[in-house]
């Protein structure tokens, strides 16, 4: 594969995204904010009243940290599928950028960083909400944002892989129903995987969300153990390892 061509201009492209985010953030945040709140209300408080404690916790306390993780995942996934696609295909923003000293790798790296920014921000907002609701019980929760950032990189890259492989706005629905929804349901957000068949539990190890949920929940509850370091390293290593792939695919897509 060709040499990767990244320069500090990545920050200028990222700055462009942040300028626009800064103008629309109220609309954006409230949209992504609303859905986790509905889950907290309906499942945590409503259904939770009928559910027996999970891993020794009231259901609301079990569920809330999981929603921090899933909000982070969804925020990034939308940005790096629909958002990226609109910029690339409809607005031709990428084409305009690469007519300047900015390279295509700069553009896509900035997209990935912007995706990670959204994970960090949106996950942290939900973290603050559950803090206010009294569902955070440990100062270890301060480590949640950096963990969200690393997981955000990974989610951004994975979403961008889909965008690079299936560049069609109608097919993003498949991404969400075939990949994101199963991840959301079977990564330990709503229930511990210990009760599921062994195969499912082992498959869950491949899910980035599963590790993020474990990390966030443990940090929020102060249940620190050495296994968490491995989960973090797994997310980080995967994010580093697949980084060249979306660059390659997106370049192939735009540059003819």
């Amino acid at each position, binding site marked *: 594969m060709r040499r990767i061509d990244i320069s500090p201009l990545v920050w200028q492209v990222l700055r*462009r995204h942040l300028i626009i985010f800064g103008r629309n953030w109220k609309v954006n945040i409230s949209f992504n904010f609303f859905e986790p709140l509905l889950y907290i209300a309906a499942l945590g408080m409503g259904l939770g009243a009928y559910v027996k404690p999970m891993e020794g916790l009231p259901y609301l306390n079990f569920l809330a940290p999981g929603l921090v993780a899933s909000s982070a995942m969804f925020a990034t996934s939308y940005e790096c599928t629909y958002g990226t696609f609109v910029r690339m295909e409809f607005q031709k923003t990428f084409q305009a950028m690469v007519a300047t000293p900015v390279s295509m790798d700069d553009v896509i790296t900035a997209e990935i960083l912007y995706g990670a920014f959204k994970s960090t921000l949106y996950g942290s907002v939900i973290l603050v909400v559950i803090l206010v609701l009294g569902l955070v019980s440990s100062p270890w929760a301060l480590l949640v944002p950096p963990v969200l950032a690393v997981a955000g990189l990974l989610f951004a890259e994975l979403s961008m892989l889909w965008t690079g492989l299936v560049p069609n706005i109608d097919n993003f629905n498949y991404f969400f129903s075939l990949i994101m929804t199963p991840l959301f349901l079977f990564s330990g957000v709503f229930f511990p995987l210990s009760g599921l068949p062994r195969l499912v539990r082992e498959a869950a190890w491949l899910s980035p969300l599963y590790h993020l949920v474990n990390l966030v929940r443990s940090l929020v509850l102060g249940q620190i153990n050495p296994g968490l370091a491995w989960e973090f390293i797994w997310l980080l290593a995967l994010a580093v390892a697949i980084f060249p792939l979306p660059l390659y695919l997106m370049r192939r897509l735009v540059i003819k």
Partner: protein
Amino acid sequence: MTEKDIIVAENLTKEYNGKTAVNGINFRVRARECFGFLGPNGAGKTTTVNMIYCFSPVTAGRLTVLGLDVREHPREIKSRLGVVPQENNLDPDLRVLQNLLVYASYFRIPAAVARERAMELLAFFDLDDRTQEKVDRLSGGMKRRLTIARALINNPALVILDEPTTGLDPQARHLVWQRLRRLKERGVTLVLTTHYLEEAGQLCDRLVIMDRGEILEEGGPGELLAKHIGREVVEVGGSDTGNRIGANPGQNGPAMASGRDEKATALPARTIEARNEKHQPPSDWETLVLSRVNHLLRGHLMVGDNLFLFPRESGQELLQALQAQPVHFFHLLLRPATLEDVFLKLTGRGLTA
């Protein structure tokens, strides 16, 4: 390569998806000139300029821009170029002024400098009262001017304009042309692609005519006209007397169509003849016209039903000679020669074909 050559292309070739879009072309663009790529859609003009601004990788051959190889130094080249792409790709999420400021940041232009330059450019392009407008609210002509302003934010040595006025109304087009001429006066080298002959004639010092990935001809607009056409063209529309040249016009009545169709006889004569022509051998009126005025011609061209005659001396003389013929033409017109005539002569096809 001399210092004056801003772009040098040698055997430049571009293939994609198994097709050859640009087939081994050679050209040089000199400093401070306006150089045009003229040709129909699909001729390879856009592909060529995409390679110049380091967007599309070169398949084969050599291409240097501002003395640098496009394969080795894309960032350096792009930092000194301005690009106006065929499709407006202004940032719709940003306002007018912000479009320029953010674009300037991609060139690492300090914010204060960028703001000053952006205000100058907006004034130059008559957009200084729209700095806070949303880009989507601008008219087509304004968007185009803003796109050109954006391309100038880094004080480029070379500006590439891909179909700069396609889709604009005539007034907006003339405004863009005026501004481009003023840029040229300031010493900016311009490269433009167009399928508007008038645009090439108005702006270009030199141009190449491209078709199907190859360069057919190269020269100044006047030079090309003088070489291939001359100053004037007489257009002759197909004679309604068909192959009966010499017959007195007006004597062809419905009787010509007799016996073919009861209903047809009720139709106006010309309609019937048009139908009948399908069943008749091709008319050779043009051969007859040519034989009569041949001594006045330096060349001719058949374009569909029209005959284009290139007068040897005076167009007026030729026109009078044609009018003296006992033939009724649909259409008889003396007009100045244009680059379209050159293109037609070289390819046998129109530019919009």
